[in-house]
């Protein structure tokens, strides 16, 4: 008996997993988060990222459920939510905890690492707010608070901007940061700071309709510190083999499926404008570019499908592009903010940068911009429409950004398809499981935002 009972006491190592690490390099968690974030944003998986459909770049062929806004069947809103909270924010938060606790590091490197992580967190939180509205924030990412309360979306945004400002202030460009663990900038602190400032610009312009004065101050504080070329864009360049390829390669090529074609709404517009990006965006069909109808079944062989550029496993996923920065500046300028240049000059830079990013030349851009329908001065509508339409065309590779900008600028005018199950969503409803897992807080949030449905606008979506 004595022998037997003393046995288990000597087996403490049975609880130690001999195949898994209990200690890891802290920056390896950042690498994982960066990869997950870039993958989630680029994905065309109908279980996760359906925004190319919502902004009507693409129509579906046989299964068009997502085009008519069936969100529940595939729990899309849950998968997108979880990817950002669990696979991005949780790892960034853990990295922050480990780095903060590490007293052996060089102080400057440590500060740069923490500031970089803070920037990535702010980016991710903003995507969540832009998609859902009020979300668990102040009590999130803590397993000791299994039912985190939801915070007000605007309050979160204010805090994000504050945190981003603090992070920008704590970068020291003379020192290193995340090093090679930073898959976006390979540890180039200078470029990371430009990314942080550009993100600040984006956040500021996002709230411009609800707080123009604040936006103006913020925007003007970023001038001269922004991403200023395609090379400086924040992006992840994927690798040639699984599981590190661009997820589009998996969705479009490896799956062997033929799920998507361009919409006639989009392709007709590109055709009309003789857009030099058309051949990169789509494959010709019988020598011409032809779009399918959004929200119904389409015969794959009859229409133009997503272009070869999207099928490259190493194609980058953009988090914040130079073109995007210039569009934001164009809009800021049009609103009378002191950002240097004119609305037209920034608009031209934005369009040019986009065309070049998709393989076009300066000459292509010049010719394109010379058309009355494109030129800033003569393009149809007010600045929101001019910028909205061209930004929509340019953000083809950034569906999450495009979905936000479409809602904010209200251009192009998109209409829901005839068989739609709801209106065109202006937000995702909360994941159904949140109702089960965090019932009271979820119900309170639903009431606070004015109803947990696809019609409730995010706080910045004033029009």
């Amino acid at each position, binding site marked *: *008996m004595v022998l*037997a009972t003393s*046995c*288990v006491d000597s*087996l*403490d190592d*049975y*609880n130690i*997993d001999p*195949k898994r*690490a*209990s200690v*890891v390099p802290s920056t*390896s*968690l950042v690498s*994982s988060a960066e*990869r*997950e974030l870039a993958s989630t944003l680029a994905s065309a998986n109908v279980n996760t990222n359906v925004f190319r459909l919502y902004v009507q770049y693409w129509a579906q*062929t*046989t299964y068009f459920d997502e085009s008519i806004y069936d969100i*529940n*069947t*595939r*729990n899309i809103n849950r998968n997108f*939510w*979880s990817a950002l*909270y*669990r*696979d991005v924010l*949780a*790892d960034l938060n*853990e990295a922050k905890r480990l780095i903060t606790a590490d007293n052996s590091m060089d102080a400057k490197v440590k500060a740069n690492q923490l500031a970089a992580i803070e920037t990535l967190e702010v980016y991710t939180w903003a995507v969540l707010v832009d998609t859902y509205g009020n979300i668990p924030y102040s009590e*999130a990412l*803590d*397993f000791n608070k*299994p*039912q985190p309360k939801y915070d007000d979306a605007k309050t979160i945004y204010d805090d994000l901007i504050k945190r981003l400002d603090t992070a920008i202030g704590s970068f020291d460009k003379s020192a290193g940061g995340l090093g090679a663990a930073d*898959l976006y900038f390979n540890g180039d602190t200078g470029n990371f700071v430009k990314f942080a400032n550009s993100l600040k610009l984006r956040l500021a312009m996002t709230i411009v309709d609800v707080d123009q004065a604040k936006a103006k101050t913020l925007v003007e504080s970023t001038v001269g510190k922004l991403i200023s070329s395609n090379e400086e864009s924040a992006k992840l360049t994927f690798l*040639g*083999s*699984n*599981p*590190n390829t661009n997820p589009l390669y998996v969705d479009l090529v*490896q*799956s*062997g*499926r*033929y799920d998507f074609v361009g919409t006639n709404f989009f392709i007709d517009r590109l055709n009309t404008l003789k857009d030099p990006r058309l051949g990169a965006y789509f494959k010709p069909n019988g020598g011409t570019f032809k779009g399918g109808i959004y929200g119904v*079944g389409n*015969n*794959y*062989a009859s229409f133009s499908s997503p272009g070869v550029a999207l099928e490259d496993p190493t194609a980058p996923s953009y988090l914040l592009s130079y073109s995007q920065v210039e569009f934001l500046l164009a809009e800021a300028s049009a609103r009378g903010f002191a950002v240097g240049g004119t609305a037209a000059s920034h608009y031209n830079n934005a369009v040019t940068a986009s065309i070049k990013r998709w393989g076009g030349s300066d000459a292509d851009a010049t010719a394109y911009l010379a058309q009355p329908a494109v030129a800033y001065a003569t393009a149809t509508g007010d600045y929101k429409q001019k910028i909205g339409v061209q930004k929509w065309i340019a953000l083809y590779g950034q569906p999450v950004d495009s979905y936000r900008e479409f809602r904010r600028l209200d251009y192009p005018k998109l209409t829901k398809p005839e068989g739609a199950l709801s209106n065109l969503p202006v937000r995702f409803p909360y994941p*159904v*499981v949140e*109702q*089960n*897992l*965090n*019932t*009271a807080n979820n119900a309170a949030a639903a009431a606070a935002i004015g109803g947990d449905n696809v019609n409730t606008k995010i706080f910045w979506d004033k029009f």
Partner: protein
Amino acid sequence: MRKILLTAALLAPVLLQQVAAQNRQISGRVTDRSSGQGLPGVTVLVKGTTVGVSTNSDGSYTISAPSTATTLTFSSIGFVPVERPIGTESTIDIGLATDSKVLNEVIVTAQNVERTRNSLPYAATQVDGENITKARNPSFINGLSGKVAGVNIRQSNGIGGSSNILIRGTSSLFGNNQPLFVVDGVPISNANTNTAGQQTGRGGYDYGNAATDINPDDIASTTILKGAAATALYGERAGNGVIIITTKKGRKGIGVTINTGATGGRIDRSTFMKYQKEYGAGYGTYYEDASGFFLSRDIDGDGVEDLVAPLSEDASYGARFDPNLNVYQWDAFDPSSPNFGKARPWVAADNGPEAFFKTALTLNNSVIVDGGTENGTFKLGYTSIRDKGVLENSEVNKNILNFGGSLNLTPKITVSSSVNYSRVDGKGRYGTGYGDGNVMTNFRQWWQTNVDLKEQKAAFERTGRNVTYNFADPTNLTPIYWNNPYWVRNKNFETDSRNRIFGNAAATYKVTDWFNVLGRVSVDSYDEVQEERIAIGSVGLSNYSRFNRTSREYNYDLIGNFSKNINESISLRGLLGANVRRQQFSSIFAETNGGLIVPDLYSLSNSVSDPVPPIEDETRVGVDGIFASATLGFREMVFVDLTVRRDKSTTLPSSNNTFVYPSAAVGFVFSELLKDVSWLSYGKVRANYAEVGQGADPQSVLTNYSKVTTYNSNPLFSLPGTRNNPDLKPLRTKSSEAGIEMNFLRNRVGFDFTVYQRNTIDQILPITLSTATGYNSRFVNSGEVRNRGVEISGFVTPVKLADFSWTVNANWTRNRNEVLSLFGDFDNIVLATYQGGVSSNYAIGQPAGIIRGANLVYKDGQKVVGANGYYAQTVSSNEIIGDPNPEWTAGVTNTFNYKGIGFYFLLDIRKGGDIFSLDRYYGLATGMQPETAGLNDLGNPSRLPISEGGGVILPGVLADGTPNTKRVSNTNFGLYGYRRNPAGAFVYDGGFVKLREVSLSYSLPTSIVSKFGAIRGVDFSVVGRNLWILHKNLPDADPEDALSSGNRGQGYSSGSFPAVRTLGGNIRLSF
């Protein structure tokens, strides 16, 4: 009710005084008169004295009788006692006749203690091996279905698939609820390696559960211990009940038994789809020709556009069949086809998916040789079960070798050993759930009714290539969503094998006649490999994966047994024991990356990109237990049981790893006081209370990081999905039970009525968290589930004549479970989520595993239709739409015997238990069932445009209660299926009445058998299984078919396999 006892020296009570020397020695052997087998444990007593002995394991005895002795009495429970004058003989052999009293059968209880049924203060059911194998079921677990009250067995229809066994309901929310299996004292693994994805219907294979490695023909008897009072001695794993299996033992002399049998099986058509025959491929009017139903291409090059079937579309909402319409179909694009380049009439297929099923064939052969002498016995058995399924290229073969032996080294020391070796080889197990690996997903959810299966078969056999009906386009002949089903079965098959040895070596030392000590070492060890393939040319990426797993369990037991009559009225028996258990599980999973290079080469090195590092798992468990039990008997009338056990488990934090749990039970045989009541043969009441503690799953305490595949030489790590908990403590099950057993009219009628309640508290839950916490789940101690229920079993022998008897056995079980509390403020936690927007949940105040999803809206019991003419849906997608727990289950067997002819059948009944059918959720949308076509209220084809008199007015009322009159289109897909209806519209009652087993047997009379020399018995039987589903409510499918065993996936049906009706014969020869 014959019972073969175990090593008598160990177990039979030797209660009687030892006798003085120099008396006369009488020896002999006591046998069962009906079988000639030796009877161990028979009390041999010198009449009028307390001098007596027990027979040993083969029925032999030697007694020293005083010279004054005149008569010996032979008595054994279950047999009619015999008195025999001694005379001058020194050898007295005797045959005992069976006593029909069912109640006095000997039952194997915890730690292999054999007890008479009247002395048991708790519910225990014994099923003889004979009754399990009556219908020659290759799985002994399935052979128990419907035969035991309180035991709910749900079998899957896949070949070698899992069986889910629940004794008294679901008590552990996330942990294992399957009972512990113990073979001859050895706990054996019933592990199921199916992945969480497989269990939730996301594809993969069902590899079955490991307890099915037991040879049904080697089972002498099975005891099902249900409540914790009966099982507490087995320790922490016994909270869900225990199934004790006693294997056959050798007899004196040499005996040989040979069984040879074959069964064939065909699918039960009531559990498969019926297809509409009016419309062919397509989703509606989305394509190229004027009607919109067809592609329009110039195939023959005559400059005129031709009609081409929409090949890429996996639905049957296409053009109406018309034999005058010539349409280019898939075979027109297969150069090897006789129809290459030819259009064909647009008609429904002659051979729909039902033509895909073959006749299943099972060959079951076994031989057991056994024998023994005064000093020992042995048994050697071999069984081969070769099983070919109803799908192409599917087989599971089992080869099982058993050895058992015991030897009396000295009068005081007996050694014994048993070894069981099995090898199970599977090939082409059925793909399960949703996905292109499961042809059922294709047939039930996404099919073209114009496709002829025999032509698909011919195309595959002609070319050896994946010539599918589902090409991407006439100009792109790659498969788009679905492979040729014959390709799937013949090229994308899995293989697996499991090599296993379990057994024990034991020694018993008889210290005195009332105390002995058993030492035993037992091992259950197996290695398994599972390989899965997706061939180059299939839909999606080609792939090869392999999973190797080893499982080792060692148990070391030291048990002292004592048994003593304190005086004439009071007996005391009991045991003291210690158990040391060590388990080790080790596995590695690896797969190719980015596809395969060389066709048909299935090797990790044949990978387009470098394979990502394999996933290794290594877990160990150590539990030390000490235990004691005492049974106090008073005049064979009152029995009191007390047990206590202490376990110490490595799965818990060391500060909290010890737990002690007691049980107490009392039985009162009140019929002993009513001996003059002639109609009452037997009556007993019993009551008990017990607790069982339990540790956690291994490695639930410390948290580690997950390794993510390296990115360009940069290491990537991530937090794990589940947060572990260093403060876990043991969970506890509190179980109470009361019952009454009564037999009447000389045991012609009897019943057993039991009520029980079981509360499981401090559950160790990987509680699902909002991912806003950064985790999917976290281990906590929390939550309480209560199961309470009623079990009734009864028997009646309405007719009992010299040559003819008819006996009915029946059992009925009702279990109600309720989640009493969860964690913190949670009033609902999610067990699993599924495709179709449904989930399994635990909600406070609700039964375990309720299904949630969007539902229909009802007004006064009528479905509400929205203003748009479609059914309204609840605002929330989170309504309770089903409860998968049956309301009650029952089994009824009828047994008729006339001379050597026996006829037997078993009805297995389940009432209630909801099922969500993903098959119908999609299948009705894609227009496969007849109800999606046909005529509407106007007498016109409903699929015509509304403008041409088509369309449908969905039955129901508007929100104001007035009848719906809005006509909606049924031209394009979706009206009846998922697109226009919430998940709640596809929930069905899972009840059934099945004719589970039938057997007709004939034993050659001894007068004939004796002419064959060595042959002692010849039995023929014709057996049938699942021959007829008398009643069910789930259309098109078998409500019983399950994806896997375990808690997940219960009440969820996707890619369901039809039931198989099995008919066959068996011959048994005994020598």
